[in-house]
């Protein structure tokens, strides 16, 4: 019983998060401007990170957690660097 509930819930979550990633991906392709693409990339990082966590829960391993952690930190650093670039046009001042 509990296995059925969890399988359905986690399967639903995986589909929803993958769909969210695709929707955000269309925004990366469509733009129209650079700031839209950077914002979309940042949300894509969050969706994929959540997808990793849910997959880890489904498989019952904690290994995906480390990957999710790395994604969240790298996502932050890259988004800030890109935002800084949009602001000034140069990353290193």
């Amino acid at each position, binding site marked *: *019983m*509990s*296995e059925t*509930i*969890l*399988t*359905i*819930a*986690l399967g*639903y*979550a*995986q589909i*929803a*998060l993958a*769909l*969210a*990633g695709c*929707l*955000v991906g*269309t*925004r990366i392709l469509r733009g129209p*401007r650079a*700031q*839209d693409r*950077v*914002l*979309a990339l*940042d*949300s894509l990082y*969050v*969706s994929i*990170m*959540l997808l990793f*966590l*849910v997959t*880890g*829960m*489904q*498989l*019952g391993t*904690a290994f995906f*957690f480390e990957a*999710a*952690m790395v994604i*969240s*930190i790298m996502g*932050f650093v890259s*988004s*800030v660097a890109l*935002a*800084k670039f*949009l*602001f000034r046009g140069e990353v290193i001042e």
Partner: protein
Amino acid sequence: MSPLQSVPLWLAIPVAFFVVLGSTLTLIGALGFARLQSFYDRLHAPTLATSWGTGGVMIASALMFSFIEGRAIVHEFAIGFCIVLTTPITLMMLGRAALERDRAEGSDALPLDMRTRPQRPDDPPAQD
């Protein structure tokens, strides 16, 4: 025996609830992100994913792994903490970058009184 089978029913229901809540909010945020028309509107959509979207999945994951491992596993909240603290920085920087770019181009996405930087007349231009 798969790890999912060992979870009792009283724990499976809250875990399922939080997972579904978190992923649905993330999906709605992404849907809004794809449909909203202006950049400044879209700036609000990711906050759904980063507030309760992340929160729901974190809580579910922490509950489930705490039970499976038999000790309190709270490291999921480190990610939650990191996301909660870092997303505002990204969004603020992007918002300011977009504002500066729109101002430089005189874009009509901004209302008229926003097209110049608000400042006192006798002040020197701000530097940062």
